[in-house]
């Protein structure tokens, strides 16, 4: 029997009518398993008829069911645009087979929704978020009871995110109404298929069908120079060929810049998430019809939206991840059995090596893992609120039952209780013994929080001076970090905040880099550890030609490295960490990828901030970190710290470091929103939100911020392994001059680690103040010399230029008349007392020199206090601490206050 013959003759007839002569590998393997009723996880490249693999057997089964009565199959995709695409395809099949199909998502008009509630379609195409909304309506809930099949498309896009964790819970909520239904997951290649299948099915048995992609890839890496003009010229030339091309870029800014440069050709359009739906659909349609031959796009085009024939894919700049490259190149050759052709245009030294490594890994099928979020507390809070609204009131044990059927909350244990307690604090639910009860707020909360995607309000930045809006910042960032007086960077310029009011941030341009602040220009795709390590190895072995036959790239890389040698620069590799002094601080070249550098950079920063009492600014990418430091802390100091680092202490140090960073506060605000503590439209202008965030100390909200940051944003375990290798001498650490590698790179993440106490900042303020004080030096020997000067300019041992004596008293500038008084030959008793004081003063200066002058210029410090301070024989900071103590005492006396 031919594979196709297992299907219902009606479905077979449709397939023939549609013009499919043979089934693809994916279809051949998946169809029988799905017909058998197995839960199936299907991995296959784009364009191999994945959707049909799932839907042919589902159609088959739908035909044998009575018509009407509820939704029988749910087709869930991560994107609305994908929904539209799938709907267009399904309408034909369903029309032929006499089945009804509908789509429901954020853009669906009210009329259509009402129709669906009254007569539900057999097949409903939706997004995970609208799936959430289906549980809110009584009538729709009833329709859900008929669901027999759930197909999740592009599941790799969801499984690793909180959206995915939320979806996993929703599937089990569906289970309550529908009982067991068949689960089908469709995915691009992932490094860990079993985990994703488990994510889809929980503890149920499943089958995995995997159609390999790697041998169909043809990837070339071309070096195009680091000059944008030149890059666009080469790109433009590459586009001069027959057929259509997708150009993938990593940021919207690059997409716009390239689009602008190539606009004159007339056959190019730009496609990214910031453009309106109409503009995007128009570009897709024109590309499909062949009116334009090139589409410049971001990850918006990665997923399987049908845009017709793509002959070639160009990746502009390193794709950063193997999975992303495979997915993107897979868009080319959209017919069965054709080879996917793709070119990476590498734009610099790091970029070239990274691209070569990723291309090689893609060919040998080394795809990254997708790791689902386990026990994400904010997802839990969101779903508990949803369940409370759904049932009105419900036993906690029942909620636990639902959760523990998923793969992501199997062992949520005490977390469920902690989350409930926290939610009650924010009045999202009420707890009555073992029952969870919904509140008036919960439904409103849910309407604003159907999605786990952080739909950030953008706060406009208004420049007072030019009277115009210069950009915007994420609300969580503003809330967590910005306050009046602070300086931050955006679009490469420094701004000082004047006020936050009426939902906007009023700023003025700032000149000084002091107080420079974190900035995120969108979330960056992190370069994995393994990729950065291998790029580091290439720097060491210099066997570029093993990776590519392209002469331009080889020549550039070799020239770059020999240039480094010529400059006597040290080249950091997988086995060598180099540290370099710069004007801004110290660069640490570590080839370890973003997540490891995020962890290591923060550990180093907190150690420095604790030891030297200074704030440390941190910027980093996959190959280097810039530690912004006071000029007194040099590379050698950082090396000593690095070498003395105890790997086993690193996780604890990192937790400490995190708490006071902008990144942490930013996360905390996002999570607090999901717990209902902060409304989407909260007005936080009147209070200090940063201190409000301290209410989350030692709560489950804080724990979740740690969990997410430590698993998603940084990789401390691997950082520990790296430092172990340093300890064992496998990786060496060396100091070098500032090099081309150290100066390179786009510093994509920025943060600040403040010192544990403000002690050093207080001392620095005191020093600065005393330095700026004036002092009146008077000779107590000849009594005929006085000189007003700055404290900084006082010599170590002041001497009278008239008589040569060193009996010099240091007076406050306003004490001028005291000196006049003691120069009289006939003195009053009080003048005599002053004379004694001045002599005492001069004696202290005689014995302790400038140090005495400094102490005497402090507030309220006279000869008695000064000699007490000097008697402690302290130096440096300890000396200044004594002065602070003396001033603090003075402030408490009536002399200061009256």
């Amino acid at each position, binding site marked *: 029997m031919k594979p196709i013959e297992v299907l219902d003759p009606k479905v077979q007839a449709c397939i023939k009518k549609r013009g499919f002569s043979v089934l693809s590998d994916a279809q051949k393997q998946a169809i029988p398993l799905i017909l058998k009723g197995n839960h199936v996880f299907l991995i296959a490249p784009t364009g191999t008829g994945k959707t049909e693999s799932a839907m042919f057997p589902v159609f088959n089964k739908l035909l044998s069911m009575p018509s009407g009565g509820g939704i029988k199959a749910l087709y869930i995709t991560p994107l609305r645009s994908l929904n539209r695409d799938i709907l267009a395809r399904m309408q034909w099949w369903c029309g032929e087979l006499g089945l009804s199909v509908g789509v429901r998502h954020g853009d669906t008009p009210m009329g259509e929704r009402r129709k669906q509630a009254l007569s539900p379609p057999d097949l409903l195409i939706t997004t995970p978020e609208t799936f959430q909304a289906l549980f809110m309506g009584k009538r729709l809930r009833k329709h859900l009871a008929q669901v027999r099949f759930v197909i999740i498309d592009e599941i790799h896009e969801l499984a690793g995110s909180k959206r995915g964790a939320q979806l996993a819970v929703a599937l089990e909520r569906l289970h309550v109404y529908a009982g067991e239904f068949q689960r089908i997951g469709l995915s691009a290649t992932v490094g860990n298929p079993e985990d994703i299948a488990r994510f889809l099915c929980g503890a149920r048995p499943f089958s995995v069908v995997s159609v390999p992609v790697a041998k169909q890839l043809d990837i070339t890496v071309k070096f195009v120079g680091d000059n944008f003009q030149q890059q666009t010229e080469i790109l433009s030339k590459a586009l001069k060929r027959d057929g259509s091309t997708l150009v993938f870029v990593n940021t919207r800014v690059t997409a716009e810049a390239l689009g602008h440069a190539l606009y004159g050709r007339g056959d190019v359009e730009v496609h990214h998430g910031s453009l309106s739906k109409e503009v995007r659909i128009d570009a897709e349609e024109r590309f499909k019809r062949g009116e334009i031959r090139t589409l410049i796009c971001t990850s918006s085009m990665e997923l399987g939206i049908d845009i017709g024939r793509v002959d070639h894919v160009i990746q502009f700049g390193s794709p950063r991840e193997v999975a992303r490259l495979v997915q993107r190149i897979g868009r080319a050759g959209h017919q069965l059995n054709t080879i996917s052709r793709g070119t990476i245009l590498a734009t610099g030294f790091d970029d070239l090596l990274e691209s070569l490594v990723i291309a090689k890994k893609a060919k040998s099928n080394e795809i990254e893992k997708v790791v689902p979020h386990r026990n994400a507390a904010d997802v839990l809070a969101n779903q508990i609120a949803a369940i409370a609204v759904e049932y009105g009131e419900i036993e906690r044990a029942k909620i636990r039952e639902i959760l523990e059927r998923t793969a992501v909350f199997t062992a949520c244990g005490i977390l469920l209780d902690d989350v409930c307690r926290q939610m009650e*604090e*924010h*009045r999202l639910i009420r707890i009555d013994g073992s029952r969870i009860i919904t509140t008036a*707020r919960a439904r409103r909360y849910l309407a604003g929080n159907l999605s786990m995607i952080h739909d950030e309000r953008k706060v406009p930045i208004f420049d007072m001076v030019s009277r115009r809006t210069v950009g915007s910042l994420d609300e969580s960032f503003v809330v967590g970090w910005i*306050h*009046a*007086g*602070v300086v931050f960077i955006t679009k490469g310029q420094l701004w000082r905040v004047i*006020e936050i009011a009426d939902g906007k941030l009023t700023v003025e341009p700032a*000149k*000084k880099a*002091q*107080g*420079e*602040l974190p900035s995120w220009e969108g979330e960056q795709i992190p370069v994995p550890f393994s990729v950065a390590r291998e790029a580091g190895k290439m720097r060491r072995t210099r066997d570029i030609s093993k990776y590519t036959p392209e002469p331009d790239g080889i020549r550039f890389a070799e020239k770059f490295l020999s240039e480094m040698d010529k400059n006597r620069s040290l080249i950091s590799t997988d086995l060598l960490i180099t540290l370099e002094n710069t004007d801004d601080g110290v660069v640490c070249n570590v080839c370890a990828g973003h997540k490891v550098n995020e962890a290591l950079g923060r550990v180093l920063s907190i150690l420095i901030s604790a030891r030297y009492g*200074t*704030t*440390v*600014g941190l910027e980093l990418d996959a190959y280097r970190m810039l530690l*912004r430091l*006071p*000029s007194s802390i040099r590379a050698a100091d950082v090396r000593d710290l690095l070498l003395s680092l105890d790997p086993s202490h690193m996780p604890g140090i990192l937790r400490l470091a995190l708490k006071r960073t902008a990144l942490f506060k930013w996360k905390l605000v996002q999570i607090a929103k999901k717990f*209902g*503590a*902060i*409304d*989407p*439209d*909260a*007005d936080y202008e*009147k*209070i*200090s939100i*940063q*201190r*409000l965030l*301290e*209410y989350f100390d030692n709560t489950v909200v804080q724990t979740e911020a740690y969990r997410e940051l430590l698993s998603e944003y940084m990789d401390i375990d691997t950082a520990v392994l790296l430092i172990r290798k340093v300890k064992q001498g496998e990786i060496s650490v060396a100091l070098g001059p500032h090099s081309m590698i150290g100066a390179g790179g786009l510093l994509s993440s920025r943060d*600040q680690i*403040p*010192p544990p106490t*403000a002690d*050093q*900042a*207080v001392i*620095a*303020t005191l020093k*600065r*103040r005393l330095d*700026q004080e004036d002092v009146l030096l008077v000779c107590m020997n000849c009594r005929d010399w006085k000189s007003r000067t700055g404290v900084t300019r006082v010599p170590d041992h002041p001497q009278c230029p008239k008589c040569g004596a060193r009996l010099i008293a240091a007076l406050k500038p306003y004490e001028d008349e005291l000196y006049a008084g003691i120069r009289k030959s006939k003195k009053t008793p009080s003048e005599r007392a002053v004379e004694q004081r001045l002599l005492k003063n001069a004696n202290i200066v005689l014995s302790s020199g400038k140090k005495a002058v400094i102490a005497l210029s402090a*507030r309220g410090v006279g000869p008695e206090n000064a000699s007490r301070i000097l008697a402690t024989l302290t130096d440096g900071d300890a000396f200044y601490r004594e002065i*602070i103590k003396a*001033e*603090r005492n003075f*402030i*408490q*006396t*009536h002399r200061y*206050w*009256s």
Partner: protein
Amino acid sequence: MNLEFFSNGPALVIEGEERLLVVADTHFGIEADLAAHGLHFRSHSADRLERLLKIIDAADPDMLILLGDIKHSIPSLTRQEYYEMPGILEAIRSRIPLKVFPGNHDIGIERYLLDTELQPRDGVILDGVGYLHGHMYPSPQLAGPLIVIGHHHPLFLLKDEVGCSLQAPAYLRAGLDTKGLGLDMHQNNLSPPRVLFMPAFNEIAGYDILQIINNPFSPFSRFIKKEEAEIILADGTYIGPLSLQQSDETD
């Protein structure tokens, strides 16, 4: 006159003939207002009160001076305040006599106070020091060496070479334009009066000192002598003239 600083308040003991503990801007009941602005938190009144009682125990004063904005809601009492205020005031009263200088947020607080506790809004001199909340013009009779006020919630940003290392409640002391404020300086041998701005006791209130100075929003912030203004941290650490901090800001 001697002073003692309690940084965990912030609170201040001013000791002359008597030991007076001064606390400003507790804003009990702020949570109801936060909720109206989309921030949903449980009441922290109990924690705030406990902090206050601990300071009372540690300072062992003769009297507590509440320098206004004891409660938060305007123009009327919220349900939260209606339930909480009597208990809070009773807990304090059972330990120590108190005097209350009502602030702009204290509408309706009279009903919870004894006649002896309620002080005039435009201030009064106690033990040689003038006290008032500070949202309105002071009584002309308040001219004296020192006037202590609340209302402004001063917060100080301490910076180091790389960034901002501390954002903390702080005191601001400055000279006053007595004419502008309408203080009667014709009384006998008066030294020029100084004002002391108290930081807020409420843990989430705070306003940058430079903002207070540069965008004045009260008679006192309008009529202080900026060039004489000095900053003291909540623990009594002397930071020094504001002018030093400011010149640093603007270059």
